[in-house]
């Protein structure tokens, strides 16, 4: 069974079609990359999956169910922006997550915090953008979800931090769970992807197994993407 099914989803803003008849799925245990240029519609698709935007047409199913508070309990989402209250400390945010997500593992979160050189008692207002993004990533990866959705997890961070983030993602990804990653930094993530979905101008232009695609085209996913999406 697919963990995530997106069927013929469309979305318009002020009469302009932003997402046009998008369909793809994410299977259990798979890491799928939703790849596209800036403004191609990746984040719009992600927002619709997470009930942050309404759908004009089509449907989105999480393990066969329509989006509801029950499916939200099974999805762990890392948005592209900082959504946490700057006035809070990391510890207070952990308290909040413990209150609402039974699957949030505080000990795991503490271990990840130490790994990424962060202090639980530090206020978010005193942190840099990169540090805040790490905290958000820790919150997401400290949950045992069926589906992890990471929207541009590497955006805005330096190359060495990107490596640490990728290592954190891979080593804390629950077995049997699925992951959907969106990024325009394809070179950094392609080695972990099982499947790739290319999106351009709100349309899916390719959806294939990553390894098969690399072998057939005899190129990296990054190079294939640059060729196809101009």
């Amino acid at each position: 069974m697919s963990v995530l099914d997106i069927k013929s989803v469309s979305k318009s803003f002020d009469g302009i079609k932003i997402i046009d008849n998008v369909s793809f799925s994410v299977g259990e245990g798979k890491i799928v990359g939703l790849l596209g240029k800036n403004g191609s519609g990746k984040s719009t698709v992600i927002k619709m999956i997470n009930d942050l935007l309404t759908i004009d047409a089509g449907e989105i199913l999480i393990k066969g169910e329509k989006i509801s508070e029950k499916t939200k309990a099974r999805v762990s989402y890392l948005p592209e922006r900082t959504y946490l209250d700057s006035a809070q400390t990391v510890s207070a945010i952990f308290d909040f997550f413990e209150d609402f997500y039974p699957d949030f593992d505080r000990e795991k979160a503490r271990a990840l915090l130490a790994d990424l050189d962060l202090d639980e008692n530090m206020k978010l207002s005193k942190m840099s953008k990169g540090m805040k993004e790490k905290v958000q990533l820790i919150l997401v990866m400290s949950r045992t979800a069926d589906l992890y959705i990471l929207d541009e997890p590497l955006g805005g961070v330096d190359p060495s931090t990107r490596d640490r983030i990728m290592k954190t993602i891979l080593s804390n990804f629950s077995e049997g769970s699925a992951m959907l990653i969106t990024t325009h930094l394809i070179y950094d993530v392609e080695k972990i992807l099982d499947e790739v979905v290319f999106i351009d101008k709100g349309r899916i232009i390719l959806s294939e197994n990553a390894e098969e695609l690399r072998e057939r085209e005899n190129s990296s996913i990054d190079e294939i993407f640059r060729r196809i999406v101009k």
Partner: protein
Amino acid sequence: MIRRLMKYDVKKMLGFIPYIYAITLLLAVITRIINIGKDIQVFSIIGSVFSSLVYSAIASVLINTFITILAVFIKSFYKDESYLTHTLPVKKEQLLISKYLSALIVVLLSVAVCVASLLIMLYSDTFFSTVKALLAATIAGFNISGGLFITIIVLIVFFQICTLMSMAFTAVVKANTYNTKRVSRGVMWFIAYYFGAMITALLLMAVALAIGGNISELLAEQMSQGGFMTVMLVGMGAYAAFSVAFYFLCNHMFKKGVNVD
């Protein structure tokens, strides 16, 4: 789940307002102490200045309460924080009810602080007697007790506050169904809801007075006892109904889904 949400919502809606509570109460205490010596001209002048400060602080409490509640509502549902709010494993109506109840708690707390500050500053036997005499003069000829009159006034004010809050939330939700000009649309919708509710309340009062044979009293300088009670009770009922009606309208629109920034 609603209690869990309210734990965080009340804290956010209070924000920095407790500091204003503390300052207001402190100013009231200082004013009262200064007014002990009000027979001396210097203390009388200083007492007047501090009284003005207390009134300003009370206004600040009420204004900041309203602004903070609205800001928390908008930030939580439609700005960056919405990425956390709308992905919580919580029903949409629970998110909304938590905001309503938390806002009510904070408003009641703010009103209590304002009333307490006024009592601290002004209360004396003379003041109490003056208020009693004023109340007696107001309700003279209406054949109701002072207690019942005050209860009706308090309930009307309470339901008016609930209605205004409900209207404001509904206007925000309505404005965010559009993609552009959300602020101006929110203001316009609030004004539309306000005038719609006021006109409806007036019509209801007119109908009630007409049924009682007192329609002409609507524009009269002085009302009869029956007319007065009709207007008061219809007004109270109307505001209670509006606050509930606007909640259901808000909930209906909110459940359809959001389009965050």
